[in-house]
């Protein structure tokens, strides 16, 4: 059975240095997969390449069997592979509800010709989208802020908003870029609880980049470890615990049960 996401031998240089140097990984459908590694390992670059924000020099990326490595960012998203950003991109001067409604797919009102011609259908879909948006806002516990400007939300709330927004797109797979970074641990754990619930109740697949090893170990079915631009180890958390390469990659930071997370509280 082929994996939902297949990344093979991706290479990308920045100014002479290979940020990603032949990285390969698989993400199985309906899994929660983790991508970890020390700073500079190339995780974010790989994320950007998979999601279409950067172009790789070599290698392939297949999503649902289709090659997406030449797709633009918006086309990747329309294929059902949606991502969040480490520095949240909450659309600050729009309301929380608008942020959510924006993300819904199949909106005839977004196309000028259909806006002019099928007025009734446009209105109907708007009402649908609004109630879906409010439902999802309740899932991420932001329903009370629906009318507020997104710019008034705290960092953790913005992460939840981005997550909710990603879910509005009815994705097959969601890539979460450091969801715990810079966030109050309680809010962060909430987000991960939602991830697990969603994996159980829907068909959605999740890929997370995270620094907080404790969290990733607890939540993931499978983990890929990156170092120096390649994936050096892959396996379930239990297998990786004793893996020497992985330990070396983290230079001993790994394996301390009370290692503080690097994120600041918000």
């Amino acid at each position, binding site marked *: 059975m082929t994996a939902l996401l297949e990344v093979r031998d991706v290479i990308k240089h920045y100014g002479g240095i290979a940020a990603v140097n032949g990285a390969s990984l698989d993400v199985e459908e309906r899994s929660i997969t983790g991508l970890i590694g020390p700073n500079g390992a190339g995780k974010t670059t790989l994320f950007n390449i998979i*999601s279409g*924000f950067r172009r790789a020099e070599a290698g392939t990326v297949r999503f649902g069997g289709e090659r997406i490595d030449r797709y*633009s*960012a*918006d086309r990747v*998203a*329309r294929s059902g592979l*949606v*991502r*969040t*950003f480490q520095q949240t*991109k909450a*659309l*600050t*001067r*729009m309301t929380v509800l*608008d942020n959510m*409604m*924006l*993300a819904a*797919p199949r*909106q005839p*009102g*977004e*196309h*000028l010709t259909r*806006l002019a011609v099928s007025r009734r259908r*446009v209105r109907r879909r*708007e009402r649908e989208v609004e109630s879906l948006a409010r439902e999802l806002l309740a899932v991420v516990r932001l329903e009370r802020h629906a009318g507020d*400007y997104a*710019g*008034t939300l705290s960092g953790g709330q913005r992460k939840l908003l981005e997550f909710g*927004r*990603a879910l509005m*797109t009815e994705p097959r797979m969601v890539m979460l870029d450091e969801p715990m970074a810079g966030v109050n641990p309680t809010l962060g754990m909430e987000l991960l609880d939602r991830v697990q619930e969603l994996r159980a109740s829907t068909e959605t697949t999740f890929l997370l980049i995270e620094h907080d090893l404790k969290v990733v170990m607890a939540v993931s079915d499978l983990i890929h470890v990156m170092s120096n631009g390649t994936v050096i180890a892959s396996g379930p958390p239990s297998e990786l615990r004793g893996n020497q390469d992985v330990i070396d990659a983290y230079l001993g930071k790994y394996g301390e049960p009370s290692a503080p997370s690097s994120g600041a509280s918000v």
Partner: protein
Amino acid sequence: MSQLLNLEFWSLVGAVSGIYAIFSIGLQLQFGFTGLLNFGHVASMAIGAYTMAILVVKEHVPLWGASLIAIAAGMLFGAALSLPTLRLRADYFAIATIAISETVRYVALNEQALTGGALGTSNLAGPTQVAEYNTDWVSFQASVQSWLHDVVGGYAGSDFAMLVIVWVVVLLCLLVLTPVVHSPWGRVLRAIREDEDAAAALGKRVAMYKLQSLSIGAGFGAIAGLLYAFEFQFFSPDDFDPLTTFYAWLIVLIAGAARIWAVPLGALIFGLIFSGTRFFNFKPFTYLDAAQLAYLRMIVIGAILIALMAWRPQGLFGKREEMVLE
């Protein structure tokens, strides 16, 4: 003092304000809603006016047909303008648009055979004739005037008729555009203004929306160009220099981002300030001649721009919170 109550004068001020309102509505769509720094907007005005005049004088196309084609030409230009944005950051794009609009003005200036060159539209039929594109419009305006005469009596001069026509067009523009910008389409534009990467990450075809925004905005610019051409019955490349674009920016900034109905208000305020200085015929201003008053006006406009940026960046009608969140 009698000039202060001169209806014909104020009709002219009102009509020109209305033309600037339409022009600025186009820019508001591009900048206020989509976040595109178009500093070459005047080019769409020029293309609208020149396309119509050239078609009427040289190809003997009827006025209304030529006007529709002119608007289409303006929209095509706007669509072409979207090509540089695909790869450029905001401030680089701004400079590119100025360069492009100056190139358009330059073509108008130098291609004498096509546009009449520096001598303007009177030269369109060649040096031996004085060309006129306006004849059909003048009769239209006259019929509007006589209709108004029946309605409001003796006050209806030809300037007043023009005023009414222009502001009816302004109203139509607002009525058409308002539901559009409050629609899901408008929501995508605002998302692009806030963060186009976020919009792309949600699957929105950012390039297509930018193209539509620039194209429709340029269409409004072309309409403004047509009305300008009809109002003054003659124009030359000098009428379409960057200063005009800056006036539109001033109006848009006065109105505040993403406010459509505030734009005509901003245009009226601008028109009042601009022509109001005419009435400074009390000391110390009597010591100045007309040219110096014009320079004083420029200083006032510059000062207002700076004051707006310093103390009221959200415009007269925008919300403060939106600015703080920027």
